[in-house]
């Protein structure tokens, strides 16, 4: 599946996204009007209470992430994630009067029939390979693992945050994040059994459902985006570095992944005017040419990134015996391999 925005990371791109917190039956009232400028932490939708049909439901219904009360802020970058009692507007999921923050800075361009608000914004966009959960807004927070000997259960995790975990996730860490009131989590990878165990859902069915968007709201209230996919793959250093630059920002995360609708999870970080000006505007080029940065999406080197050194003129015989167009790749670790072009996603 090619990245809908071209590359896995777009440093500056204008997007239009409907702000909609999920749940196909929830009604909503827009609190803003087309043409209005909004800030990421500004409430833009008030949710009506859902009709209750518990007797029909075979899955747990869960509340939506919302703004309900003031939450403690997160310490500046570098400090551990201890909390104080002043600061941001974002809140943990709860029932009651629910409003939804914009998550994006920009202009409202439309209000949809269901009450969603379409916002146009200039953003840094990071696309994941796999994810789950509806769209949520939260404060981007880098999770710093403690040293050996400290269990993850003792690691403080700020509620209302969208947590960046540099390494692979585990079931325990997900449970810990959920219990801490974190609304979203961005990590490199996870084993399938851990993810399905946490979601209480068949992931294959989830990504293949004709109505996958509606199903997202039935999952535990923790939106997940995996940048590398399944397994125990690490997050590329340059991506981690990029995310750390925006720590503390209110960002918009969607975990919705659909094979049928060709949707991938994404993290959108709104840029200020000054930042947008400073960042290079670059149209993503998808052609696989020497010099292109690529990610390997199958086989023994899955998840590794590198640069195309050269392309073979004729089809090459792969270790599987299949003949395919191929390229020589210099991996970031310095190894040179031959990979089929079909196994390469251009990422830069």
């Amino acid at each position, binding site marked *: 599946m090619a990245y809908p*925005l071209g590359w896995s990371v777009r440093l500056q791109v204008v997007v239009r996204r409907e702000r909609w917190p999920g749940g196909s039956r929830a009604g909503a009232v827009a609190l803003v009007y087309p043409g209005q400028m909004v800030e990421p932490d500004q409430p833009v939708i008030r949710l009506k209470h859902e009709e209750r049909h518990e007797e029909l439901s075979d899955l747990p219904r869960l509340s939506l992430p919302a703004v309900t009360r003031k939450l403690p802020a997160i310490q500046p970058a570098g400090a551990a994630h201890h909390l104080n009692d002043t600061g941001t507007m974002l809140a943990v999921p709860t029932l009651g009067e629910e409003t939804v923050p914009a998550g994006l800075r920009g202009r409202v361009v439309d209000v949809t029939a269901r009450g969603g608000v379409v916002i146009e914004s200039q953003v840094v966009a990071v696309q994941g390979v796999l994810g789950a959960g509806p769209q949520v807004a939260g404060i981007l927070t880098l999770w710093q693992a403690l040293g050996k000997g400290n269990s993850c259960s003792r690691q403080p995790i700020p509620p209302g945050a969208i947590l960046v975990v540099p390494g692979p996730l585990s079931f325990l860490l997900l449970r810990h994040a959920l219990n801490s009131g974190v609304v979203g989590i961005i990590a490199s990878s996870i084993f399938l059994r851990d993810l399905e165990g946490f979601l209480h859902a068949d992931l294959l069915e989830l990504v293949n459902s004709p109505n996958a968007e*509606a199903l997202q709201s039935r999952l535990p209230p923790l939106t997940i985006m995996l940048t590398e996919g399944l397994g125990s793959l690490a997050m590329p250093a340059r991506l981690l570095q990029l995310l750390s630059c925006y720590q503390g920002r209110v960002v918009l995360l969607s975990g919705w992944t659909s094979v049928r609708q060709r949707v991938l999870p994404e993290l959108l970080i709104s840029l200020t005017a000054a930042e947008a000006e400073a960042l290079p505007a670059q149209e993503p080029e998808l052609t696989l040419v020497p010099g292109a940065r690529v990610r390997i999406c199958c086989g023994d080197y899955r998840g590794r990134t590198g640069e195309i050194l050269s392309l073979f003129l004729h089809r090459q015989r792969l270790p*599987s015996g299949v003949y395919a167009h191929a390229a020589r790749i210099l991996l970031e670790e310095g190894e040179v391999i031959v990979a089929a072009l079909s196994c390469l996603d251009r990422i830069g």
Partner: protein
Amino acid sequence: MQTQLNQQEGQAAAHRKEAAAANSILVADCGSVLTKVSLLGLVEGQYRLMARGEAPTTLAAPQEDITRGIVQAINEIELVTGRQIIVDGHLLVPEQLDGNGVDVFVTTISAGGPLRLVVLGAASPTLTDLVRQAVSGLYAELHALPSPTFSASMAAGQLSQPGSTPLPGVGPAPWTPERLALEWRRQIDRLRELQPHAAIIVGMADGPTGATPIQEACQLLLNAAHEQREKTRTFPLPVLYAAAPQYVEASRRLINGAGEVMRLDPLVSTANLGPISMAASSLYERTILRRLPGSDTLWSWSAAAPVATATSLSSLVRFLAHHYTMNVMAVDAGGANTTLLLAGERGEFIPLVNAGIGVGSGLGELLKRVGSQNISRWLPFDVSDEELRQFVLNTMLHPHVVPSNQRELHISQAFAREAILLTAEALRTGALSNFSPDLILATGSVLAHAPRPAQAALILLDALQPRGVTSLVLDRTLLFQQLGAIATVNPVAAVQVNENDAVTHRLGTCVIPYGALPPDQIALRVVVEYSNGRQVQVEVMSGSIEVIPLRLNEQALLTLYPASTVDVGLGPGERARAAEEIDGGLVGLIIDARGRPLMLPADKAERQARLLQWSQAIGA
């Protein structure tokens, strides 16, 4: 109106005339994963395949234009031939004096997903099955939502009969008003979940529930439309009305703006399938093909309206069966769909498109339907459920990837077996039980790109389990799917390319003895007389596979001496001598004496050893 029609017919006829005189034909097949483009041209008075290119299909973001993938595949052809076909992003038509451009462009499409169709009203298993038959040749997914009152009535009727079992999904609990209300709610939810492209209302009003199921079907659509109007999906939904004719106007009034009602003959028997099939086909073109991103450009390039790949393949299979007076079976193991087509020498034709079951994006549904045990039984190594599920998820997210190592190759071929087997099973009890194919055509990337021809042959033998004597042909050029569409504009080109290029990858003739094969004894003695007079005699043990060398373009006379309980098509123990010489192939003469139905050993170690043994014997 009539004048307009005449003008259109005139233009179409003119197109056909131009196409019939074409020097060059470019044909694209846009699959769910790959777009294949072939250039056909006149070489010494005969149409031949000149070059072909392949590129990922570009329906998804960021390209979101089906023609981008076509252009990329054409670029590959341009590189090979030096002929310029695309100029400033446009197709150069007709062929120029300098040899650039092409005269005709035609397209087949299997990308875009299936047509989701819901059967409403008095949707009994019998009527649902009839609708299924009507749409079996299309990329269509069918879901039955019988009206709550009809379900209650059926359950009551069934339960009143001693020893009867309830309808699937209809529990034995009494149908109280509360339960009916719950069922009503469940159906609206289900309709929203399915997001159908169209609905079909079936059932006559002569049952105990009268016209209530029809009324409830209309009401269901109304309610769903009312809810959906507040959300994103747009109504009205196309509604095929194949129910009691006296209520068509009342239904139209009731549905009002929620659906566009199209009246058809009431569905009561197989005699009414034709109109439903045609209406569904037209809906497929309107709601799927015409809505593909880039379709306007594609239609403007094409000499004839693009057709579904399954439709094109159907035309080819029927033509071959008619032309060569033989039973032909075609199997297309695609990424999102699996297609099985049977065409008999007497004009019989049975198509079955298993929409959503495939070896790319269709893997998820396939695994759900068959289970991981049925996949792992074809693997000569241990594999965990998690590894299989992970493989499926990765392939669904990256359906264009090719297996990069032996393990992935084995797993993808195991899935291919099950996709074909599952499709064949649907026909096994009916049409396939008496159908003995003389020729099996196999297409689809997983088969065409198999590293060894013997691997493709073994997949076909495992999954289709033919009996008697048959020939296997592999479509390594991936041309079969396109030939039917070519035939609509230039039949001569289709025939010549088929004979010159498409069927050149003959895998070989297969002899498959069946009946009671004596365990650990000789099942069959085979005598092969080569054209040069050399004679070979082979004794084949029950449970084994043997390959007798008979190369491509070689022919030989074949005599079969089965054991007394073994049949090779003429009855148990009956000796058979081929009246004509049989053809060789890339694999050779294959004798598959493993028995029918094929039984794999229950013990894992023994099964894995046997799979390896068979694989080595056939040269896979």
